[in-house]
């Protein structure tokens, strides 16, 4: 793989990761925060597979990526459970409705 292509891959991964992270930290809507998280997860998945491909260890890369996907799905399910509970309490899915705990 040419150096330019690798650079492109890394750039794309970093851009999407930064986008997702930024979104997750800035938004007040709980569902959007989780979308941001999913974006970061995707970029990391791509990164792991890329690392595996570049070193020739395709099997290892996939094993890690698959495990990652499974774990993150469970995290997503729990997050959604929490969102639904929050909605049941306040009728909103917004952190502005939750500003109850001061840092």
């Amino acid at each position, binding site marked *: 793989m040419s150096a330019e292509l690798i650079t492109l891959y890394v750039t794309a991964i970093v851009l999407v990761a930064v986008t997702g992270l930024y979104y997750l930290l800035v938004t007040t809507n709980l569902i959007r925060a989780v979308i941001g998280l999913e974006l970061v997860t995707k970029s990391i998945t791509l990164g792991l597979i890329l690392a595996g491909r570049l070193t020739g260890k*395709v099997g290892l890369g996939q094993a890690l*990526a698959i495990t990652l996907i499974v774990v993150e799905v*469970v995290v997503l399910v729990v997050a959604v459970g929490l969102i*639904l509970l929050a909605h049941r309490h306040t009728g909103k899915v917004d952190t502005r409705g939750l500003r109850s705990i001061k840092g």
Partner: protein
Amino acid sequence: MNDAIVEIVMLVTFVLMALWAVLATKLLRAVVALAATSVLVTLLLFKLDSPLAAVFELSVCAGLVSAIFLGTITLTQPENEAEVAESAKERIRRYWYLPPLLLLLGVALLQVALPDVPTAAAAGDDVRKVLWTSRHLDLLGQITVLVAGAFGVIVLFKEARKNER
């Protein structure tokens, strides 16, 4: 040459779809954009000689995750309509500098001179063999994670019965 162009297009689309997911005003559009990024990641994974991971990504992230999001949005419906009605202006104000920031970052990264990495031949063991022989522990971890998830569903999703309080 054609090969590389296809990959470049996929990478660019990937970033654009991610951006759309973030900037979309309607939540449903954001979820669709997320599914689109999953599809692109799947294609990229195929290109990177990782078919098993690609299929996983497609079925789980593009499929299951999108379904979960759609379900959540449906269940929290009343609020979401009001949210859309909320001024689109405020969103523009908060997010307008994201695309330029990304552009700057992208350009900066592209300048970084990475060494020419000789891509090793796609050697190494097959995924299934790797998972079974050297990453047992992760498999056990996955099983535990799924069990934990099941408990999450039981504990968090059940309607609180009145007499349980």
